[in-house]
């Protein structure tokens, strides 16, 4: 009975070990796995980079066509969601964990600008534009800090 209970406990324990998230499941072979992770992570970041720069290059978010602004913000938001649900390679963890929240902040600030413009709320628009400026500056600061620390490849 004792052994039966023990075997039962082992089976349950093995079953209850959380599965590796889908995004983390990789084909066999440690080296291939690491390369796959690096390439996937890089691709996600390339899309996020382009999406951030589209918004940053808008000269005046208060005057830009609302449809364009909404499309740019939605694109950035999709890129960020994919990054959040991804698993970065260990070699890129520092960069990923520092830049991800900074890009999330740019996304949220851009969304606040879209919301303020949609609601035609002047005070909220002024505040969200200040936030967007600040979030872009903070992202630039994060990149500089990474560079200074020599973490960037």
């Amino acid at each position, binding site marked *: 009975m004792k052994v*039966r209970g*023990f075997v039962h406990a*082992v*089976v349950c*324990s*093995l*079953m*209850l*070990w*959380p*599965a590796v*998230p889908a995004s*983390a499941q990789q084909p066999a072979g440690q080296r291939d796995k690491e390369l796959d992770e*690096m*390439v996937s992570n*890089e*691709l996600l*970041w*390339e*899309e996020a*980079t*382009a999406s*951030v*720069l*589209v918004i*940053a*290059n808008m000269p005046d978010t208060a005057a830009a066509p609302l449809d364009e602004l909404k499309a740019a913000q939605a694109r950035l*938001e*999709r890129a960020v*969601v994919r990054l*959040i*649900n991804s698993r970065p390679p*260990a070699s890129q*963890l*520092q*960069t990923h*964990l520092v*830049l*991800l929240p900074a890009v999330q902040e740019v996304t*949220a*600030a851009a*969304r*606040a600008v879209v*919301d303020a413009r949609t609601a035609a709320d*002047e*005070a909220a628009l002024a*505040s969200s534009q*200040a*936030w967007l*400026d600040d979030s*872009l*500056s903070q992202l*630039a600061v994060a*990149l*500089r*800090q990474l*560079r200074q*620390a020599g*973490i*960037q490849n």
Partner: protein
Amino acid sequence: MTRRAPVALLVLLTAGCLLPARPAALLAEEPCPSSEACLSKSLDRNWQQYYDLIEQAWADKQKAAALILRAQAAGRQDIVDAIKEKQVKIEERWAFADAVAHTLTSPFFKDYLERQREEAVRVRSAASENARKETDLYHRLEKSTIGPERDGVIRDISGYEKEGKELRETFYRDGFMVSLSTLKESSELLSSNWANMSKWLASYNLDESGAFKGAEPYVFAMNAVVFSAHSSAEAVHAGMGVQEASQKDHNFEALLEATRGVAGGTLHMAELLARSPTDPLKREAMEKAFGASAARAGIYTNVLAVGLDTVLTVAATDRLKQSEARQLHIETDDAHWRARVDTSGRIAHDAAMREDRANRQIEHQQQVEALYKKIQEGTK
């Protein structure tokens, strides 16, 4: 029964284990009362996932070791083998969790969060002070409709506006200096790679949009930025206005023009990188242009850094110019002032929420640090 659990039960349990543990974060359709609340929730969730990952991976590692000991004591080699098979995955998961914990508790990461908090405190403090002064001036303006008292209020408004204008100029000037200086460093690296990239893209016929057909102007612009950055930055740093610098320093306008060119080129490059991401020819061209390791890790950080620094340089300059060109206009209209007070109040309120969020990031980091410390102590 001791050796064969019912298959159906196993399948059900396994399926249950394989379901995602948490819903995806920051989904566009996720209802949030505000963008700030949504971001805050998403960042909290990120931290909770990091914490759970570390805690669970460590618990699994411990559990596996204990079970092996018990199985060995019970003389059950078949169970020992089964657990060891699972152990590979468990160790792999722990190695990743350990790397996450190590990163989040590193002095660099703590310093990064601390600087963010300092910036949030500075912005909130400035916004609160601004809101207080504007509200005070508005109340005084409301009460003093005639006579010398009103003249006094108008004098104060004038002084306050001048002070505010100078603060804004200092802010943009500082931003301009920092962005330009970083841009100079980044562009030296990128301009040579850019020229290479153009060559490789052309040889593989990958530049469908023609964005890099004429890569030379971008490379030229990048070099122009590097050339002009030093003298222009010095002129502005010496307290010269942007208008004045434009007139006295012939490099300045050239710098701005070049910076705009680089901003446009960088955006093109980012779009090209993002487009057809899995195209093997593009990957090959990238690797040849940037080198195998750089192609796989970190091009985006260079592109993003240059892109943001060019944009911020141009934006800071435009705003400095606007600020300098603006005539000091004393506005005493009631509706205008009410709108100003509303806006400054809103900005201060939103800045306070961001400061709270920055504080919470540090609290989350401290929780992860305490957990990791406990784990490290347990391994001694």
